[in-house]
């Protein structure tokens, strides 16, 4: 049974919407890795915990999940800055395994916090203003997904603009390029790192708010989003915003199409298989920068 | 090729993007020699070592060692054939003891740890590393000690040719004197051929039998230390008196 063209078009469109959200999810990760060379294994778990937080707040004060970001984004920035100061900064210069391991530890803590407080139950926000469909020929456009995609792309491009066109961006890029030279130029590298890590985590809160306008929170989306965002970075390299967007769209569409054509289980597996194959056959070319 | 030639580098070129790091360089090192390879920053000295030891793959040219073409072979294969090296920025095994690090090198030619350990001790003693620090972890020793361990680890592989990459960089004058003596001893008593890549002229001039000067990826001059010291083009390259 081959699905109808209408169904395919719908699936493709959903994939594109999802892809834009993925690019926002991966943005923080790529920023932290690109600038600091720090490998944040807990990235996906921040998105997961952010989603639960959004559910908790949106449901208790009966507001739209996208508005909750006004609270969660600054909160996550502070959390990110604190984690950088307490955990990340002390392990600079230690064995790579230990560096990776501490962020694995952070992820483990977040995951189990969620399991403890929210059990394993999936949660979705009931009242969202964006929960309506616009019919357009054979496809139905989910307003929440459309808005999510639009906002995501605006933010991703906005951050790109910030990095390339502003003084702060120049400082950040100088630090990413050469830590020692940046220090000599009078840049407070520590401050830049604090800012970047905080921003990286704050962006996960934003992505989580948008995700919750149509998705649901459960403890396992952390691992799933974590790996997905890494797949995106591996595919797109750290080159720039175009690579990030392209690979996010590829992953989103790939996932959506396999979900329609095959099964949800396969659609979960496919990005990982692609990831392994990419690692095997094009490791250098696709990553852009590696140690 | 003369019979006592150990290493022959022929028309070696290496590019990084648009930058030519090595431009058709010819170098020959003969058995038992102590050759200094000097040049200002960016002359391609370290690139040359990296191409010889297999860290980089050159775009053109050949590296011939003991009559065998070893161009583009993996670093461990080249080490097995008898070329060892040290690093400009030391690469210590921080969480291993000094003796374990050197034993690792000695295990290239034997697979008995006990025997390798004895050899490691002999080498450390030979280069004058303090016995009391044999069991100290790599992360707890000083820079000069790191340099000595790096050297001992390389010597433990029983190389025929040892390449030292800026071995005195970052050291105090008194420490440079220590290294100078060790390097001479390795060449004279262990009979190991040495290629000493160096930025510090004073050191190279005092140890080398013959000096090769690289400049902007090309061979600029070659000769005895005294010939090189008075060579006008070398002085120009170093002092940069060339009109702009």
């Amino acid at each position, binding site marked *: 049974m081959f699905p109808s063209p209408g169904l395919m078009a719908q699936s493709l469109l959903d994939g594109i919407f999802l892809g834009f959200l993925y690019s926002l999810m991966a943005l923080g990760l790529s920023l932290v890795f690109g600038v600091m060379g720090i490998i944040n294994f807990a990235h996906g778990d921040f998105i997961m915990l952010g989603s639960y937080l959004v559910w908790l707040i949106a449901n208790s004060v009966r507001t739209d999940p996208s508005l909750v970001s006004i609270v969660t984004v600054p909160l996550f920035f502070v959390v990110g800055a604190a984690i950088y100061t307490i955990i990340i900064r002390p392990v600079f210069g230690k064995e790579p395994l230990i560096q990776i391991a501490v962020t*694995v*530890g952070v992820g483990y803590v977040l995951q189990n916090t969620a399991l403890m407080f929210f059990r394993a139950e999936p949660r979705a926000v009931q009242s969202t203003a964006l929960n309506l469909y616009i019919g357009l020929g054979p496809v139905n456009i989910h307003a929440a997904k459309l808005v999510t995609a639009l906002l995501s792309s605006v933010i991703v491009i906005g951050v790109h603009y910030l990095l390339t066109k502003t003084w702060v961006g120049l400082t950040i890029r100088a630090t990413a390029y050469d830590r020692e030279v940046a220090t000599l130029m009078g840049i407070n590298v520590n401050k830049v790192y604090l800012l970047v890590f905080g921003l990286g985590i704050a962006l996960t809160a934003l992505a989580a708010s948008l995700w919750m306008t149509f998705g649901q929170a459960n403890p396992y989306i952390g691992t799933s989003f974590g790996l997905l965002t890494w797949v995106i970075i591996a595919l797109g390299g750290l080159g720039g915003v175009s690579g990030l967007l392209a690979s996010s769209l590829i992953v989103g569409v790939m996932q959506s199409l396999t979900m329609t054509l095959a099964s949800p289980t396969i659609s979960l597996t496919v990005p990982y298989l692609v990831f392994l194959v990419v690692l095997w056959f094009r*490791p250098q070319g696709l990553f852009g920068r590696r140690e | 090729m003369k019979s006592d030639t150990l290493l022959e580098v022929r028309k070696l070129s290496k590019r990084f993007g648009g930058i030519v790091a090595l431009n058709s360089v010819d170098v020959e090192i003969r058995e038992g020699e102590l050759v200094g390879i000097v040049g200002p920053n960016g002359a391609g000295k370290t690139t040359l070592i990296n191409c010889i030891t297999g860290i980089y793959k050159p775009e053109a040219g050949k590296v011939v060692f003991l009559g065998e073409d070893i161009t583009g072979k993996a670093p461990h294969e080249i080490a097995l054939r008898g070329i060892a090296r040290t690093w400009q920025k030391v690469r210590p*095994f921080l969480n291993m003891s000094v003796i374990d690090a050197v034993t690792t090198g000695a295990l290239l030619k034997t697979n008995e740890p006990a025997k390798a350990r004895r050899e490691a001790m002999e080498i450390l003693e030979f280069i004058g590393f303090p016995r009391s620090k044999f069991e100290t972890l790599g992360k707890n020793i000083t820079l000069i000690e790191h340099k000595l361990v790096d050297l001992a680890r390389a010597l433990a592989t029983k190389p025929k040719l040892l390449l030292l990459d800026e071995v005195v960089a970052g050291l105090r004058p008194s420490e440079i004197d220590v290294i100078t003596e060790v390097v001479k001893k390795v060449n004279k008593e262990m009979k190991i051929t040495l290629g000493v890549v160096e930025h510090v002229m004073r050191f190279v001039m005092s140890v080398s039998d013959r000096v090769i000067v690289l400049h902007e990826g090309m061979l600029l001059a070659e000769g005895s230390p005294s010939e090189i010291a008075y060579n006008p083009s070398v002085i120009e390259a170093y002092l940069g008196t060339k009109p702009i």
Partner: protein
Amino acid sequence: MMMNIRKLLVSLLTILLPMLAGLPIPYLLNFNQYYILLALQSVIIASVALAWNIIGGYAGQLDLASFAYIGLGGILATELMINYNITPWLGMLLGSGISAALAFIIGYPLFRFGIRGVWYALSTAALVVILHESVIMVLGPYDYYIPFVEGWYYLRFRTWDNLYYFSLFILAGVIFLNLYIGRSRLGYYLRSIREDEVAAEAVGIDVRKYKLLALVIYAAILGFIGYIYIVSQRTFSYKTFSGPQSVYIAIIGIVGGLGSVSGVMTAAIFLKIVEEYLRGFLGGVLPGLHLLLFGILLIVVGVLRPGGLSTFIEPLLKRTKTRLMGGKV
């Protein structure tokens, strides 16, 4: 000569000591089956963590796929037993083989293309997910009690005692392998790879080959243990392919101290006791609290004491050993 015999005896004792110490435990626990099962699970986890020590502790590769190999080996042995009445003794060997083969297939290209650090860790984390999902796809979301059979032929018994004794032998075997590798050329090579791959290559070490060897040995041990693990969990489930459990093994390896046999063993047993203690007290109120604490413990060790428990235990053991050997070593 006398010295050598003494040395040999001390080494032998080091390997057998955990086993000898473990033997009277069922008696001390009054053959309480619940506690013996816990002891069995601790011994298995300690064995798994010690296998991890070869790839993670010695070779310094943050492998997060331990339960991929345990699951694969375990599934094979269990399926063979249930469907074809093939003894797990053989099944475990086959399980070991298939896990080793998987490790080779995964590891060869990874190491061939110089994948290391975070990319290695990610690839292994992805491997667990892929197997988890693939197994569901092929076998369905199975989760059931293994049909009851009894006897040494099936390695299953009415009580846990025999299996516990059996697991002590596995532990002794894994300790022996660890110590043997640690003292051999392979051990020196793996540790130097952990410290600096480039420098290791320059002293003639074929980094790829030895990393692959470490991975295959690790996977072979896990594939062998798989069946015993599944039996000790009492259910046969796709959930064996667990990412969080695999991370837990790495936590034990790091908290114990990279490359330290005594540290890793202590960490495995200590964490199991903490887990049970917390489950007993707070399990109803805050399930999963122990996991949360283990995560924090990992962070604390990483930040404050990357040497882990071994920095406390190793000096103590060394002193005892020196005394046993008769003064200076």
